[in-house]
């Protein structure tokens, strides 16, 4: 669990007593490629630290069209955040895109530690802030950048992603068709952009 400990300590200092309590709540787990960590319409109960692998969060509209909202790689935390907070049916499923190794915990058990350990309450706050920051960053990018620019940013943030998952997942994230994505990639290689 060293990777998890380092990941959390980097966000905010956690005392040894607090860590001992927190550590006890996590268990090793696996997600097979295609397996869902958080399902549609279920009230979410678990969070997990992604030790290795790739997970996507996606939304399905009434017509059945899927939109990839976010990718998660290691180190990172997965879990249907809104559903965990509200205990309402989850609207945003999370699915493993490759085999994943995870450390799983019951979210409620973790949250119950907040009142007893101030550094864990602070960790909860810092994590909430980082969710917000990511969300606002994405909204700005979607409003201000075109698909090519967003594609280049995605490659910068997740350099190994395209080697491991099909192009249609990338296209879905960018809200474009696979044909449009191919066109973008072709244009980038014609312009001799680095990496193409």
């Amino acid at each position, binding site marked *: 669990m060293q990777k998890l400990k380092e990941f959390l300590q980097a966000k905010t200092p956690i005392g040894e007593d607090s860590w001992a309590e927190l550590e006890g709540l996590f268990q090793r787990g696996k997600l097979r490629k295609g397996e869902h960590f958080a399902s549609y319409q279920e009230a979410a109960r678990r969070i997990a630290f992604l030790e290795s692998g790739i997970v996507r969060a996606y*939304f399905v*509209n*009434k017509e059945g069209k899927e*939109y990839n*909202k976010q990718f998660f790689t290691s180190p990172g935390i997965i879990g249907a*955040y*809104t559903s965990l*907070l*509200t205990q309402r049916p989850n*609207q*945003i499923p999370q699915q493993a895109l490759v085999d994943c190794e995870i450390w799983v915990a019951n979210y409620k058990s973790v949250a119950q530690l*907040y*009142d007893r350990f*101030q550094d864990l*309450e*602070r960790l*909860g*706050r810092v994590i*909430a*802030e980082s*969710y*917000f*920051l990511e*969300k*606002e*960053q994405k*909204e*700005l990018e979607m*409003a*201000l950048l075109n698909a090519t620019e967003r594609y280049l940013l995605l490659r910068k943030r997740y350099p190994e992603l395209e080697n491991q998952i099909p192009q249609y997942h990338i296209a879905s994230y960018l809200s474009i068709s696979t044909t449009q994505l191919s066109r973008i990639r072709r244009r980038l290689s014609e312009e001799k952009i680095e990496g193409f």
Partner: protein
Amino acid sequence: MNIKTFITRYVDPDFKGDELPFPIQTFEFAKEDIITDFGEVETHAYFLTEGITQISLEKNGTERVLDFFFPGSFFSSYTSLLKQEASDVQVMALTNCKVEAIKGVDLANAYQHSLLANKVGRIATEYNYMRRVGREKDLLSKTADERYQDIFKKHPEIINQLPVYKIASYLGIHPESLSRIRKKVIS
């Protein structure tokens, strides 16, 4: 509602009103006052007690309204406040407003030593996050008609208090489309 009642209702029912972990100041803003401008670094977290504010960005010279805030909400250029970097968004008063304000530095200090401060920060942030998620989901899954109905049901006063073009911008539609929708609602 003010910050103290927010805390009692959403953070800690046992909260005694004289134990705020950070100092607050009250401000008033006039209609169209820019509270935080593009490029400024946010200095405060605000709690709206009266009036309506907006957060917007600018694309190709056109204003895009990201969100409206109504009394009982925290608002600010939050990314800028958290990262202490230049704001990508603008925060503006759309009507005369009254706010309670927490200075960013006071909040940061309170986070060092107060469990309650961290809890307030976490819950306010979680709430703000969920608002955004809800808005994104609505944009993807509801028609402009439906989204107009939603906001009109919750805040009927916007019709009298805000210009049509602003509401249209928030809904992501042309003002003419909004006029059409409103005619349908009235009839």
